[in-house]
């Protein structure tokens, strides 16, 4: 390509590429809606903060007392010891007397959830943990002793 041709090709290219770009931005300008989530106060009708995160989000831990078999696997699995489970035997029944999670220390690694054989311990989507006092984040999941669930052989929970 000689210099003269290149000169005019440059002009044509400059005009053409600018127009292409402007067309794209025009489309975004008039058509595409905003995808911003206006957290926290304009989430849309009926939506809470929990709804804006994905289903497999690792939020706060939740323990379902009716499912826990008191095996303490979660406590052992936790690398930073933020779960405390105590199980006591009263006559024949084993009772879960304490299930505490220190959510302030938890790093949401999920090892405890993986370890749990009965799917009693799961993540919720709750993530708003800002607090003035660390003790607010130490959750006791059972208020009074409950009998542990029985793991039925052969069947998953």
């Amino acid at each position, binding site marked *: 390509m000689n210099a003269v041709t290149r*000169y005019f090709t*440059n*002009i044509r290219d400059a005009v053409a590429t*600018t127009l292409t*770009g*402007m067309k*794209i*931005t*025009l489309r*975004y*300008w*008039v058509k*595409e*809606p*905003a*995808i*911003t989530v*206006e957290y926290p106060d304009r989430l849309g009708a009926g939506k809470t903060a929990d709804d804006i995160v994905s289903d497999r989000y690792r939020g706060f831990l939740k323990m379902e007392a009716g499912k826990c078999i008191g095996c303490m696997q979660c406590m052992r699995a936790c690398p930073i010891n933020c779960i405390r489970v105590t199980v006591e035997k009263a006559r024949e029944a084993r009772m879960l007397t304490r299930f505490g999670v220190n959510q302030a220390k938890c790093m949401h690694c999920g090892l405890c959830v993986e370890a749990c054989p009965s799917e009693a311990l799961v993540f919720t989507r709750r993530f708003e943990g800002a607090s003035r006092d660390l003790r607010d984040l130490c959750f006791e999941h059972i208020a009074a002793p409950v009998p542990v669930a029985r793991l039925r052989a052969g069947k998953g929970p």
Partner: protein
Amino acid sequence: MYSAANTVYGILHASLAAVGIPEAVITLVAYAIPCGVVIAIIGPIAGMLTYAERKISADIQNRVGPNRVGPFGLLQFPADGIKLLLKEDIIPDAADKKLFKLAPYLVFTSTVLASLVIPFGGSFIVADLNIGLIFIIVVSSLLVVGFLMSGWASNNKWALLGGIRSAAQIISYEIPTALSLLTVVLIAGTFSMQEIVMAQGPWPWQWFLFHNPFTFVAFFIFFVSSLAEMNRTPFDFPEAESELVSGYNVEYSGMRFALFFAAEFANIFITASLATAVFLGGGNIGMDPYASGLGYQLLMVLIFFTKAILLCLVTIWVRWTLPRLRIDQMLSLCWKYFIPIAFVCLVMTAVWMLAFGGNGFFWRMPTI
């Protein structure tokens, strides 16, 4: 030659000279009033443009943009202005204090001066100078003095680089801007802004934009080189956030920064008005702007502002489309492309005028 200052002077003189107020005071006031009105109009427009810029950029990038202050965030710019007023005014120790303080006013002054000869439609023009177009080109070059001054006075390497870049850029782009405006002067045969507007008509085919193919090209050269002159992306080298932090105004804070900012956005509007008046028929609705009634004059103003604001939106749209060029590309664009093409347009327009006796493509010379 019409001048709002003269009119105001006439009114003031009639009523005040009898009371014994000296001539000099009346003259000063007669000039101060129209200027004050123009600043009062330009200020809010610049503010609304900052809002439009943020809103449009947000739309283009699928964001929301300002939406908290007032309905749809419309009151964002007064809030920003108040915030800037309350900010601490910092002057660096090593700065050249006098120049540092003077620079923002110089930049703002050049913007306001340019607005004095813009015909806002009807008889709304502060002074219809017979050298109006030259006046605008001259005072908009004053801008570069302010930029250079602020860059130098800040005693900061980024500011200095920004100032020097703006000097290189604005001075080179002055030439294609002026040349492309000259094509219209060739056709209209006058430098007076109001007469240029009056030489056109209300309909698109009566505008100088469509007078002949060369004015059409000249309009785009004017538009792009004025983008460069007001430091807008893709030519925002003096500011270049990613390279120079913020360029010449990096050391400024508070109200001085706000002045720079307001001048920048006011400049967008001024340039859009200039393009509107010179190429797009201004507020012309086919009537004599001085003789028609107030209702028609306001209609002219409305038409003028519609065109100018639309052009402002295009400016913003371009900014959020194109990335910044390289500095060598910017200079070669100017010297290798715009200046030769602008010259060709100028010469060919002259040839066209000779060949077709001043008639345009769809356009006939008004028979006087």
